[in-house]
């Protein structure tokens, strides 16, 4: 489904990703771990299409379609969902208005039926219940005055509504207490399906107690330097990153 080959990218003149190779097949859950500065967030942003990052070499395709040539909104429409490490506060735009515009745009682009206002409200309420956000959060400004945990739950809420092919969670566990972590994990687990890929980018093993990955990778120095099964995460938790070849 997602195929990343020899991806080299950076910001301004600084090269960060240096020949990254990574493949996700439908139905799989992958965790990407790594020390600070390894390029984890850069990888998420480059796949999401954040302006300012420059791709100097390599490819990234989703079901054979080149992602790197697409605008961020086209990637979202094609099925990429990037859950932000720091979801942005957008005062003055109500969460409901934002979610509705987002669903309408993405569904229309995929050729799905765009829900009526009533049907959308129902979907939104159900998603709210699933991530345990009170309904009043739909009326508030997007992430405006939300706590860290509420913002992350709002990300999962959006993910539930947009039904992406590829979920990319960038440090979603940062700033979460255990209760919020469980809610977020349940939301993600409910999206596990044979036709969907999930990539969890994280610094800690903690989230992986709740979302069991099929594969664990270590990203260091802008490359995947080691891959393994779920046991690798536990080993990293115990021993740190220093023992792995290629980690500076």
């Amino acid at each position, binding site marked *: 489904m997602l195929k990343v080959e020899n991806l080299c990218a950076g910001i301004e003149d600084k090269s960060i990703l240096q020949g990254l190779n990574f493949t996700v097949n439908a139905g799989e859950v992958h965790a990407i771990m790594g020390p600070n500065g390894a390029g984890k967030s850069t990888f998420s942003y480059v796949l*999401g299409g954040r302006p300012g990052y420059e791709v100097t070499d390599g490819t990234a395709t989703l079901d054979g379609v080149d992602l790197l040539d697409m*605008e961020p909104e086209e990637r*979202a429409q094609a099925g990429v969902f990037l859950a932000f490490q720091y979801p942005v506060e*957008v005062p003055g*735009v109500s969460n409901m208005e934002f979610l509705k*515009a987002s669903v309408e745009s993405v569904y229309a682009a995929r050729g799905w039926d765009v829900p009526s206002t009533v049907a959308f409200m129902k979907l939104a309420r159900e998603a709210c219940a699933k991530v345990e956000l009170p309904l009043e959060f739909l009326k508030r400004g997007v992430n405006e005055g939300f706590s860290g945990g509420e913002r992350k739950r709002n990300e999962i809420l959006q993910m539930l509504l947009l039904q992406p092919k590829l979920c990319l969670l960038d440090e979603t566990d940062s700033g979460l207490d255990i209760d919020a972590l469980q809610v977020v994990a349940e939301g993600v687990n409910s999206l596990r399906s044979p036709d969907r890929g999930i990539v969890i980018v994280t610094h800690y093993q903690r989230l992986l107690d709740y979302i069991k990955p099929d594969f664990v990778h270590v990203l260091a120095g802008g490359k995947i330097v080691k891959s393994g099964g779920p046991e690798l995460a536990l080993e990293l938790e115990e021993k740190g990153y220093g023992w792995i070849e290629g980690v500076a």
Partner: protein
Amino acid sequence: MAELFKDSAQALAQSFEPATGESWLLEQRRQGSSAFALAAMPNRRIEQFKYNNFNSLLSQPISLPQGSDDALAQAMGAEIPSLDAHRLVFVDGKLNAEMSSAPDPAIGVTAFSDADESQRDLISRQLGKLIPVGDRPFVALADSLSDDGVLLQVAAGTDLQKPVQLLSLRTTSGVAAPRLLVQIGAGARASVIEQYQCAEGVQALDCAVSEIDLGDNAEVHHYRIALGSAEYTHIGTAVARQGRDSRYRAYVINTGGALNRLDHIVDVQGSGSNSQMFGAYLARAKQQVDIHLCVEHAVPNCDSQETYRGIAAESGKAVFNGRIQIHKDAQKTDAQLSCRNLLLSNKAELNAKPELEIYADDVKCAHGATVGQLDEAGVFYLRSRGLSEDKARSMLSYAFINEVLLSMPLEPLADFLRGPLDVFFTNQDNG
């Protein structure tokens, strides 16, 4: 160059003086005409006109509207759905009875052209009383062309539930000078809406003057909406005078127009008063949109909050001049002015100037004026959820002024404004 405009305006005023319209306004016109003859025409050396370009307005003679196009007026989409208001509609300066609400004796409102003897007497005595014409050439011009308008009198203690609306539509070129004269008795409450619009492609000039006098403990919600089309020039002056313990709320939206300017004066003459002003001014393409606010705190123990949001896109030009003057007797005044602006293009221009003049020594006063750009992290966030860049930017721009819309107690009016604002925010070329 301005001579052409001035000469033609004077000739117009003279021809207008005895011949047309309501002749009982003769004295008003004469005084206006003499004041206009003495007034300096706007130019950049005069501080209050420093940021305006009056060149194109002043480079041509003016004339009165020749007739009007009622069908066009009906089709302009100026009607506010589900707004239950008592409405007086003026098309090119003349009352349009058909589009207006039927007279309702329970509401003390009349068009000047329908005024009875005692109302005429009141109008001729009160018109212009609240405005120092002095250095205001367009008020003098409006006076010299005084004709029709709205008189609203709310008796003491009355809570006028139904808003009163002055809707002025322009369908032909030329100058019109609609007036609004409002007198709110002690302890009375009312909502007043002024709405000015001009059909596309019509090169019209409105010199609109409104005066609102609030008695002791009175409350007024004053909505003032000027939606310009490309060739429309709107030069408005609004004055509110506040009596003791009165509450004045103003909601101002100025957008569009070759030149769309409002001089808004709040004269706080009664202690214990509160004034709250919310305003948004938006310019794109070749538009020039201004708000010149002047709050005069003359007496002690009053507070005022001024919240303004401005946006300039494309080659638009927006000006906010917010002057708060605290006179020496106005001890314990609390005045808070916030003015935030969004500059969306390199070709756009924004001038935001708060001015505090404080002559009392025991006051609380704060002002903030900022000019910024859209938060690019926000733009990416919205795009990453599938919204096009244009949609993301328009949504964020919208959010910037939403505070002003949300402050309006009259929801149908706020909903109506979302239409023209959507048009403003969509398909901008800020490259």
